[in-house]
């Protein structure tokens, strides 16, 4: 199938990323010749098992973790569910759960259906964010309670890239013996992470956000943290996750983690500079545009900009004409009728929330691409504003 990837300007890397060619190379043998089952007694399968252990070490290396703290899962969502439900089963008497208003649906929707899942009524604190998308540490401290079973707070936000001080928050939690989970799906590979230097108990990551394939994830479980599996079955993953391994993807994820460690520098210098150029010039050349999310406390690759009085889906479809890929927090693109919960939680005015566009870059983006986007965007926005009944009123 030809999907036109060669002409695409891909700035939607928080949605998913291109699988690195090196990753594909690492995976190929496991999709062809090396098809053994890693649990088998024979050497043919055992070799595959050893390859998985190597991938586990590669993931551990990127996170500053021990290999036995790494559990392979099927995706970021499974990792999130596993961590939260494990904690609730570990402390069934603790009926308080703390999270934020801006979590990914993988955590948000789970936390909203806990009663159904556990049969218990839980108190859920959903921390507010301010207009920059930041949490208030005082409210966090005050919400900590003796019956808190789990705290789940994302490391970086997928829509705005805003980074939360999860290490600091985890330290406060561990002082009180409370389990702390972080959804680091957007953070891993974009900012340095060292699990030896913090007290976070669970961390989720997802392969397809760091140039590995879709459908593979990791749950980091700190040594000594009580753990109840989500998928019961065979003894795979040392009994922590049943099911025959998605071997090729796990190998790919291992390789991707190795590459991520190497490109972390590039991500935080060159990619960041491209992002900054894109953002600065869009804000300068397009009137009534504004940045969503704190300008500094943010991932180096993400820029979320609102263009007032126009609607996101319409903007995206025009960008699509030039093969520019991005995302929007507008109602129409989320499949719901309201702008994204992140935009609403930040109090982004409706005039702007519907017209928010997220650009998320990767190491594969070039300056030429940024220049092309800068060349096309002003006219796209101006044309749509010509159609908007609200635009004239503001001129």
């Amino acid at each position, binding site marked *: 199938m030809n999907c036109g990837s060669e002409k695409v300007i891909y700035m939607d890397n928080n949605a998913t990323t291109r699988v690195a060619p090196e990753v594909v190379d690492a995976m190929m043998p496991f999709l062809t010749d090396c098809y053994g089952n890693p649990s088998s007694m024979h050497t043919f399968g055992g070799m595959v098992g050893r390859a998985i252990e190597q991938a586990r070490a590669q993931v551990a290396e990127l996170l500053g973790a021990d290999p036995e703290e790494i559990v392979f899962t099927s995706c970021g969502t499974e990792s999130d569910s596993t961590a939260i439900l494990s904690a609730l089963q570990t402390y069934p008497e603790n009926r308080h759960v703390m999270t934020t208003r801006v979590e990914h649906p993988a955590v948000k929707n789970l936390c909203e259906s806990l009663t159904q899942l556990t049969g218990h009524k839980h108190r859920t604190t959903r921390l507010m964010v301010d207009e920059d998308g930041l949490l208030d540490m005082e409210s966090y401290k005050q919400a900590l309670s003796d019956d808190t079973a789990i705290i789940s707070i994302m490391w970086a936000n997928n829509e705005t890239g805003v980074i939360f001080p999860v290490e600091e928050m985890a330290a406060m939690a561990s002082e009180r013996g409370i389990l702390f989970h972080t959804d680091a799906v957007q953070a891993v590979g974009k900012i340095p992470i060292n699990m030896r230097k913090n007290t976070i108990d669970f961390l989720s990551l997802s392969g397809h956000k760091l140039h590995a394939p879709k459908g593979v994830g990791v749950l980091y479980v700190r040594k000594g943290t009580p753990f109840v599996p989500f998928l019961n079955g065979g003894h795979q993953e040392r009994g922590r996750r049943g099911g025959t391994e998605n071997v090729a993807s796990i190998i790919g994820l291992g390789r991707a983690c190795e590459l991520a460690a190497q490109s972390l520098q590039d991500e935080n210098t060159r990619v960041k500079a491209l992002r900054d150029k894109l953002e600065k010039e869009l804000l300068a050349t397009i009137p009534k545009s504004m940045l969503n999310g704190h300008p500094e406390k943010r991932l180096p690759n993400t820029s979320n900009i609102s263009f007032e009085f126009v609607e996101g*889906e319409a903007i995206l479809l025009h960008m699509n004409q030039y093969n520019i890929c991005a995302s929007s927090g507008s109602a129409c693109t989320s499949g719901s009728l309201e702008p994204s919960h992140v935009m609403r939680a930040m109090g982004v005015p409706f005039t702007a929330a519907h017209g928010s566009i997220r650009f998320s870059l990767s190491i594969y983006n070039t300056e030429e691409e940024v220049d092309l986007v800068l060349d096309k965007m002003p006219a796209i926005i101006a044309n749509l504003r010509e159609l908007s*009944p609200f635009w004239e009123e503001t001129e």
Partner: protein
Amino acid sequence: MWEYTDKVQQHFMNPQNVGELEKPSGTGDVGSLSCGDALKLTIEVDDNGIITDAKFKTFGCASAIASSSVLTEIIKGMSIEEASKLTNEDIAEALGGLPKEKMHCSVMGREALEAAIADFKGVILPMAEGEVVCECFGVTDLEIIRAIKESDLRSVEEITNFTKAGGGCGKCEDRLREILQQTVEGIAAEKTKPHKDQRMTTLQKIKKIEQVLEREIKPTLKKDGGDIELVDVDGDFVTVSLRGACSGCQSSRTTLKEYVEKKLREQVVDTLIVEEEK
């Protein structure tokens, strides 16, 4: 990614009749920024009641823009009477169909047209009234009932697709289910009634309407200290004026649509549209 037809794409990429008429005969302004889409339609009507020009301005997604654009093309050259019979389904059809989640865009087109026609005629549009059922999107029970009837909706999800009601916090869902059930039952009951002859002359219509007003409607309204007078009948448009306790009363428009119009549709012609004299 939505599956848009070529027609939607065309009207979105090259919208027709963008702008605002300087001296419109009628203006329809519906939706709002907070709702995520809004449409301002201006029309020009000549002495023969023909729409000679139409322009629009739309804030919204591709299907909202395409619906507005195609609407202006459809209504140009139409008589006001023809135009007032246009449904949202007609708009969607002209676009070769819309994804079901986007049907509310065509509903917005129909609402704007209705508002513009009402503005042209100088009547107050009764549809904006009724009891607000969905607070998130400000949708009233009358609007919901109408959508159920016109588009033959059979689930709460469909109601959301067409009217947006229920698409926000979701707390109005139970009420939507209730309205749906009642309306569907109502439709079933109506179907079993004998069919009325629709081909009446205006004179016959007026006579019949007056009869129903005198015999049934007036006595009921009088019990509450109100009264009603027939002002004009123009095609299917019945203009009345409410008197006494009814005039200016909060629920007068509900009375008009839910009671008077319903009665007249049942007993005279089921396409009648009742409006209040401004």
